[in-house]
């Protein structure tokens, strides 16, 4: 008998011939979050099993595994040779006194002679004999005893199942460049795409002295938290003050934000292409602020032709985004009161329904190509992990 953690995958089991690609990535990601722990990782059909770990580490191992995309659920439990008496011996030791329960047997190993229902009933009898005040409740039990008879000759017994992060293993869906501002939305957008298997690069524009060094540090803290889910993040920080000063000096102030965002998109597209990213990721949510109206998004979107811009939060309410930010542990950092570059030179009446001709007219007052090239060349790179 061995103490184990049973890892069940989410969508991977639906994959066909390339299933092993996803499974290998999942194993790599599991190893990444368990760096520093002692354990053995084994693969059996449709599951990963962790064994040979220190019992006291189990809560921490479970917590780390909950960061891994591609895991559907986790159960700490026991591994025992598939022999009726051995299984019964384990079940007889389960202490669930005072609870309602049911036994669920899964028989992936069809060579096991007893039928699932029949074996569940037999094991139920074992539980009733060995615990006080227990009652079978098949509809709404407090404890479900899972008995998983696998093809590897072992049976896995568990009573607790913790949900995993779900989604697809990091690195299975290409690489995207996340526009990371330091606010609440962009880290959540990064999380959403990482959940779909995307590796992340991140791009932050900073405006010292209009914003503080603390604001830049905050972005690094957010990237660090995201990297716990997504794996290593290449963070690019771009000094943006001189661009804002140029726009402020030369363009109509009401167009400040839209011109600024279009320049940011141009820089993002260039940096993304240069670093092998296949998409730009933005935390925009329709109608949230002036630059996120349909018209504004149309005008910023029109520029980027070589890759898609993913906006996973486009249909989410602020409250929903805040809830996710809390869940993934970025909210408390995001609300630290340091301004990001978007609030610098904020016009009193930003245009909410810009048209492309007018925006292009404002842009013609600037040497955009030069500004973009300067920014790309000045981007500083840091690996966050």
């Amino acid at each position, binding site marked *: 008998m061995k103490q184990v953690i049973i890892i069940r995958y989410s969508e991977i089991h639906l994959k066909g011939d390339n299933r092993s690609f996803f499974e290998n990535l999942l194993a790599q990601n599991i190893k990444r979050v368990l760096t520093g722990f002692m354990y053995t990782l084994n693969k059996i059909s449709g599951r990963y099993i962790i064994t040979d770990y220190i019992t006291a580490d189990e809560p921490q191992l479970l917590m780390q595994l909950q960061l891994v995309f591609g895991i559907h659920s986790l159960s700490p439990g026991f591994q025992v040779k598939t022999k009726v008496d051995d299984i019964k011996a384990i079940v007889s030791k389960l202490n669930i006194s005072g609870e309602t329960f049911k036994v669920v047997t899964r028989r992936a190993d069809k060579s096991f002679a007893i039928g699932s229902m029949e074996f569940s009933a037999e094991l139920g009898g074992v539980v009733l004999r060995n615990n006080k005040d227990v009652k079978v409740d098949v509809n709404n039990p407090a404890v479900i005893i899972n008995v998983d008879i696998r093809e590897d000759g072992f049976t896995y017994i568990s009573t607790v199942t913790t949900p995993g992060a779900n989604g697809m293993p990091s690195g299975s869906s290409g690489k995207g460049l996340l526009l990371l501002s330091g606010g609440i939305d962009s880290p959540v957008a990064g999380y959403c795409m990482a959940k779909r298997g995307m590796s992340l690069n991140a791009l932050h524009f900073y405006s*010292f*002295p*209009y*914003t*503080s060094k603390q604001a830049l540090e905050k972005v690094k803290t957010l990237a660090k938290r995201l990297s716990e889910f997504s794996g290593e993040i290449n963070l690019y920080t771009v000094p943006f003050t001189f661009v804002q*000063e140029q726009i*402020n*000096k030369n363009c109509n102030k009401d167009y400040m934000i839209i011109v600024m965002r279009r320049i940011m998109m141009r820089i993002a597209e260039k940096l993304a292409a240069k670093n092998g990213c296949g998409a730009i990721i933005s935390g925009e949510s329709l109608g949230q602020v002036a630059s996120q109206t349909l018209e504004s998004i149309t005008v910023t979107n029109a520029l980027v032709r070589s890759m898609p811009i993913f906006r996973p939060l486009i249909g989410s309410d602020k409250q929903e985004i805040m809830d996710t930010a809390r869940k993934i542990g970025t909210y408390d950092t995001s609300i630290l*009161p*340091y*301004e990001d570059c978007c*609030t610098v*030179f*904020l016009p009193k009446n930003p245009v909410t329904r810009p048209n492309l001709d007018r925006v292009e007219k404002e842009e013609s007052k600037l040497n955009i190509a030069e500004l973009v090239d300067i920014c790309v060349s000045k981007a500083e790179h840091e690996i966050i992990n």
Partner: protein
Amino acid sequence: MKNKFVYLDNAATTPILAEAAAAITRADEELFFNPSAAYGQALEVKKRLDDASKKLLESLGAKGYGIVFSSGATEANNLIIQGGMKKNKQLIISAGEHPSVYECAKTLKNNGTEVLYAPLNKDGTTDLNWLRANVTSKTGLVSIMHVSNETGAINNLTEIVKIVKKVNSACIIHSDGAQAIGKTDVNLAASGVDAYTTSAHKFGGPKGVGALIVKNGIGVKPIVFGGGQQRGLRSGTENTAGILGMCKAAEIAIKGCLNNRLLYTEFKKIFLETLDKNRVEYKLNSCLNCVPGIVSLSFTGLKGEVLLHMLEEHDILIGTGSACSSKAPDNRTLKGMGRSNGEINGAIRISFGVCNTSAEVRQAAAILADAVKKLEDSK
């Protein structure tokens, strides 16, 4: 001390004085014994602590007072407010108090204590007419800071004591003096306050040590429990090195107070004259009677924090009047003085220290003037 930067944020904290640092090192090496232990070395430590306390009390004119060392002003303020307030009594604090008083009062208020906030005058001092009209036999404790950390405004402690004691002689009068030592004269017995807070790192001492000085006979209950050190008022092994470092720094700061005042008055003059010469418009939040070491000024329509960072680019470090926020300004003191949102957002705080020179101050003002002009131009 030679630095690559010009440090003009001495109201936030000061660099440690060499003499205080030396006292700390010496104490750590030679006086590490637990003063509560039963052997002779411990007794020696206790004596040294007692001597240092006695000297500190003497230098603050605190005859008839005792001292409770703490981890700083925040703990000292909490001790007197939480430990000095009696049930069903009312608490009065000024609207411009430091968060360590303000938040402590808020917690009591949330637990059912009646708290009144004495408004500020336009010059940043507490409105004593309001106090005269509102203090009653119900008032259990009045806490009004000696020197404002935001503007340097000095409250007249003697007058406050007179007003309160006339109506209610049993009321405890506390003053947070974290910004006072070394900047203005402190004579506790002459003022008559019952309790007074100090903080070492504001006058060249180490961080993590402060004190509550309490008149003998004033009833204060402890808020930290344990081994019963410091007459049971603050359990925990005494921070010998920190306390000796603090007392050394206090000795120097108090001795140098008059000279420092003259020096800072000169600095303030140079600073404002340089701004005037550069034709920069500002509104002074620090009045003529404020301590000269703290100068708060507003550049209406600009952001104080942006100015801070523009100076930071030139290695000049100053404070803001308001935490950076594109939302509502959050400076209670300036708000209490009737300043507009624009004035609050555009406020900065310059605070001088013994390490500064006239040349540094002149240079900082000139660079500030350039920064203001640059921001004005980009509006």
